[in-house]
């Protein structure tokens, strides 16, 4: 028991400081991916709802690809693919250099694209859930397009989309574990190293699982607070 406590201390013998650093990487990757994924997902959703067939097709191709590929494969495609394409482009320009893509950036792009593909579906169904009478009513009282969006549609839209987005956030949090495979020192990678060095695999992977659970728990506390906040302004239905 004493040995276990030493392993979990913050000192040079312990692994807690390494694991805490990994936790920071996991959380910051998820937080950095979120706005990127939301923005792209919103754009894709607008594309899907557009009256223009070519725009709909382009948006649908995006979702088909990023919802159909395994996340791990997407990550590899981005990580190695970007590396190779940049090298080829540089070679065309007459420069030969070994390029290393930042694993954090690759993770952000890959996970963000997958997040966007799923988020666009949530946005589309949220937009569809708002009856056209809401727009017509807003125009009838003389609001401009922008005002209608900001004052009438958005408050309802956020309320409808939030549960789906909360779900996607929890999925994103779990999927950040994949970046440990391309060498980013997140929770899972740090605990893997600790497990390999100390031969206490069950202990350290158990801790990794617990940390993810704690993150999920904290997120659901925050998310339900946000949900309460946005539904407070809503009409009782």
């Amino acid at each position, binding site marked *: 028991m004493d040995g276990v406590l030493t392993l979990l201390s913050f000192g040079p013998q312990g692994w807690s400081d390494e694991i805490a650093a990994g936790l920071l990487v996991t959380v910051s990757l998820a937080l950095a991916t979120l706005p990127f994924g939301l923005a792209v997902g919103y754009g894709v959703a607008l*594309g899907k709802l*557009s*009256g*223009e*067939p*070519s*725009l*709909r*097709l*382009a*948006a649908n*191709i995006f979702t*088909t*690809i990023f*919802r*159909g*590929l*395994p*996340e*791990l*494969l997407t990550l*590899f*495609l981005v990580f*190695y*693919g970007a590396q*190779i394409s940049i090298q080829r482009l540089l070679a065309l320009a007459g420069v030969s250099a070994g390029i290393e893509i930042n694993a954090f950036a690759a993770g952000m792009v890959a996970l963000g694209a997958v997040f966007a593909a799923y988020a666009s579906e949530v946005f589309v169904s949220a937009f569809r859930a708002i009856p056209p009478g809401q727009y017509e009513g807003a125009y009838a009282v003389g609001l401009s397009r922008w005002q209608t969006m900001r004052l009438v549609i958005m408050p309802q839209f956020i309320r409808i989309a939030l549960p789906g987005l909360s779900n996607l956030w*929890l999925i994103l949090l*779990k*999927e*950040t*574990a*994949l970046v*440990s*495979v391309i060498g980013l020192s997140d929770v*899972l990678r740090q605990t*893997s190293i600790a*497990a390999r060095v100390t*031969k*206490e*695999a*069950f*202990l350290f*992977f*158990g801790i*990794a*699982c617990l940390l*993810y*659970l704690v993150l*999920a*728990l904290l997120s659901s506390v925050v998310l339900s607070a946000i949900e309460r906040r946005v539904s407070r302004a809503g009409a009782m239905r």
Partner: protein
Amino acid sequence: MSQSHGTTETRALPPAQPVRRWTPAKLLGVTLLGVWFLLALGVLLFLVNSWNPELFRRYAPEYLSGLWITLQLVGLSFLVGGVLSIPIAIGRRSTNRIVAAFSYGYVYFFRGTPLLAQTFLVYYGLGSFRPQFEAVGLWWFFREAWYCALFAFSLNTSAYQAEILRGAVDTIRYGQWEAAAALGLSRLQTLRKIILPQALLVALRPYGNELILLLKGSAIVAIITVYDLMGETRRAYARTFDFQTYIWAAFIYLSVVEVLRIATDRIERRLTRHLHR
């Protein structure tokens, strides 16, 4: 008045073609389609350029065997998970506090942690208990990466499937149970003849989605040295440093997922044809 005037005229003339204008939306759409087209062309050119019959002959059988391993792993763990999910779903609805808490904790754990971490926990973590497993004669099971993956995936999907099942049964209104009880059906008969036929219809799409998610998630077994499709791809890439290995894998995964998605759609449309008007 003007309408009757209009009809006589349109009978003679074909309806006027709407003017096709270049709206900003159309410009954007065509540009984005162009980007997709160029990307597809780039990938195609890359594949043609780096086409290597030697490589294809060498690795095509390995990809096929990898695909077979993937399908086996996903199919088996989906079935095992489906069987396991039934007691868990019942436990979630149990009035016994301990049973309900246990099944809640089970579902929360497996849905709240990454599948990769769970797989590591089983494959590397349970290895710490080798003497105990050897004592009960189970070591042969937890020694093999394949069985460990099967074990972890079955537990994982059972948690998700339990929630699907529970959610679907919950959508059936309580009056159905009462009506069946009034007709003198036992609880089991009610479940089998009244509740499940309606609930499974609701659950079909979530089940299909779960199967697709499991298939996509199964790529991570490559990390614990199971040579599934992803494992074969990684091996081929490590040997050849040829990026087309990953592109082939992407094509295969995409087509399997699309086939599954279309099949779920078809089955659902067929089974719910009495609900459409």
